[in-house]
């Protein structure tokens, strides 16, 4: 079927089987390999993207569900030379180690900070509870998100 949607701010249209996984569309024909596959059953959260602003597992969303909607992936947050404040915080505060879970966690955190600019630690932990990280013990991830929120607040008040 013909699927049209807004991907990282740009209108895109392509032909895809209606039951193709969004994950495969992103990584295949759309060439966005920043979204990772860790388990293929919605448990690890590595493939988290935002569908109309809401975090979803791209391995459990099919192409047909995306028609007419907006999808945001890690490539839509910033670029290597122009990182978003959240991405930058993950680099500075040690939120990424091996990096394979990082794009998914960034998407979950981005959704959190959009809805709740000043989250408490419990809210931060809740927001990434669907994203498994085996490297960090989560503490540096929590600190990275907290750091980004704090920086935003100080920018706005300053």
């Amino acid at each position, binding site marked *: 079927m013909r699927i049209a949607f807004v991907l990282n701010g740009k209108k895109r249209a392509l032909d895809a089987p209606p039951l193709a996984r969004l994950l495969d569309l992103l990584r295949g024909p759309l060439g966005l390999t920043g979204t990772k596959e860790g388990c293929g059953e919605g448990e690890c959260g590595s493939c988290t993207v935002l569908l109309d602003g809401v975090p979803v597992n791209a391995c459990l969303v099919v192409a047909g569900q995306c028609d007419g909607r907006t999808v945001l992936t890690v490539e839509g947050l910033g670029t*290597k030379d122009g990182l978003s404040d959240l991405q930058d915080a993950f*680099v500075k505060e040690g939120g990424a180690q*091996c990096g394979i*879970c990082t794009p998914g966690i960034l998407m979950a955190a981005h959704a959190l900070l959009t809805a709740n600019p000043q989250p408490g630690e419990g809210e*931060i932990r809740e927001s990434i509870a669907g994203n498994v990280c085996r490297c960090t*013990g989560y503490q540096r991830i929590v600190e990275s998100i907290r750091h980004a929120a704090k920086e935003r607040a100080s920018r706005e008040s300053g």
Partner: protein
Amino acid sequence: MALVGRSVPRADGPAKVAGTARYVDDLTRPGALLGATLRSPVARGRLRGIRRDPAFDWAGVTVVTAEDVPVNVVALIEEDQPVLASDEVRHAYEPIALVAAEDPVRLARALRALTPEIEPLPPVLTVADALARKAQIHGPDNVFATYRISKGDAAQAIASSPVRLTGRYRTHHQEQLYIEPQGMLAFWDANGAHLVGSLQCPFYVHKGVKRTFSLDDAHVDVTQAVTGGGFGGKEEYPTLLALHALLLAKKSGRPVKMIYNRQEDVEATTKRHPCEVTIESGCDREGNLSAVSIKVLMDGGAYVTLTPVVLSRAALHAAGAYRWEHVAIEAVAVATNTPPNGAFRGFGAPQTIWAIERHMDRIARELSADPLELREKNLLRVGDTTPTGQFLKESVGVQRCVEEARKASGWDKKRASLGAAAPTRPVSALLRRSAPGSSAPRKARGIGASVFLHGAGFTGSGERRLKGRVAIDMLRGPSGKKPLFRIRTASTEIGQGTETVFRQIAAEALWVSMDRVEFATPSTSVVPDSGPTVASRTVMIVGSIVERAARDLFARTENERQKGGGSFDDAALRLLAGKEPVVSEKTYETPGDVVWDDETYRGDAYPVFAWGCDIAEVEVDLDTFETTVLGFWAVQDVGKAINPLLCKGQIEGGTLQAIGWALNERLVVEEGRILNARMANYIVPTSLDAPRFTTVLVEDPYSMGPGGGAKGIGELPMDGGAPAIAAAIEHATGIVRDDLPLLPEDLFAARRTGT
């Protein structure tokens, strides 16, 4: 300058957070096929054939069987494991055949159209059956390896001790569960075999490929892709996957990519060895330890893989961080028809540290002593000797770790105010208090501690045999004005921070900024063999070679500057104007006073040890027996933290793996098959399960460590978490659990036997 000791942001960070870092599944080559593996459904049997469904259209499908393998062995410690089974099948999921096809759908159908015909044989599924020789599956006695360590006369000393205690402690499998499954991209050209993959040790793969395809060094290239975690799971296993992908690529004449899905990865790749440790100890009534006798029994699985080395490390850590005048350790690993166990962070030490730490708590219980005080009284100090007779001449920061952990956690107060472990209050009383309808609290809190050590670097003569090498090139910079430097090493970045830390060490020694030091992608045709990325050796051993090579280049440039004048950069450019490339290659030199005898297992088992004290505070729900970790204090002597932020990241991540091993993870194995090989049912900790860590770095420098004394700490944090949790649960509830894991059902079952 002072780059060492600073938490500079990780060098590979921007690409990872931008999603542009290229992992193996993000790569392809024109015309690449996808590959998959046909595996044994049974634990043991004789392979009679492989049936191909004649109704299936085999056009464009490549099938590889044992007949296609030039030399059918995986070259590791022993050559007992075939690349593909040809006769006897020795474990469930053992590779039998390989398939390649154009797309995933064709591939899945082709795989289903192949059926292995296996005549089942009675499998050996337990260590007890292996020892009883229920069937002969390895050598004459099913034993992979045996080690003995002896100091003084343990049997006699225990017999004459006023307090003699015996305990048996078991640990279970653990899956590494790196979030990126294993994967490899293979192709052949006029230069031979090429591989790009997710791996820790490029030269292990290199060795395996040379052996199986009878190639020389120059005709095999192994390149590491950005790797999404390893934890030991990508130490030896990638060699097998690389051989599979290369076989398919050779037969099909096309590049082949093989990416495991999660279930296949959990089923087929190596796990942490299950282990049973029996400890008998003798001490006096005041808690002064005297003698210990330890028996270690490990399940190696179906093939040798790295089991002897894991067993050796288990034995060498079995007596813990304590002074014993008399020690007898016997460690045995046996073969079973279960998927091979192999490297996992800690490499045998977490199993024996679990045992000795639980045993220390047993002694404390018997003597009604404070468990931390008992430990403190018996800690190894500078000037003591270990069970192998190793004289500890420096960098024993364990006393400070205990002091800082005690203070930071509020141990004294919490030990007195929390818990139900006082011997006058048995668990049954506590449980009665919280019976349904009772108004008493239904949750119990407690605090527990562990003290531990981890030998950094290869065991025994390993580093001396290995002779790890590193090269640093001086290169013309892009402007032609400022020279650049490039580190070439086989030590891989797998998330732990190798690239960043090596660049810090080199830049500091060269007196240049970090952006002038590059890190070459580890590829066997480009980098010298620095040895594998394992054994907590990367920073301490390989980092020290980086430092020497950088210092050498600095000295040569400085020498030129003094002769010809100008700045450091002017002098460097003059060196670069010469005919020869400007490069410094250095080989690891084992300190002369580090001496080890493999025959007697006496001497310096490791160049140095890192030390730690973990304290856990938990709350146990007395209805569900769920444990929540309320606080965790990890205080570890790292010698010198090259990058404190990355160092703390290692400690927190490793500690959570240990907590997961204790509280969440359980691999269910029946008839040699894994019943929960998915992330939906093999549960690892999430952000809500993880405690808030208080991580304290103690720095008691090691004189031969880089950057002013760094020690290896990659594995240390895996050692102390589980016993600290068990001790805290015991303090909270009185439930004494000597076996891992500590899942609610385990605590529920153990409450009946609690003292």
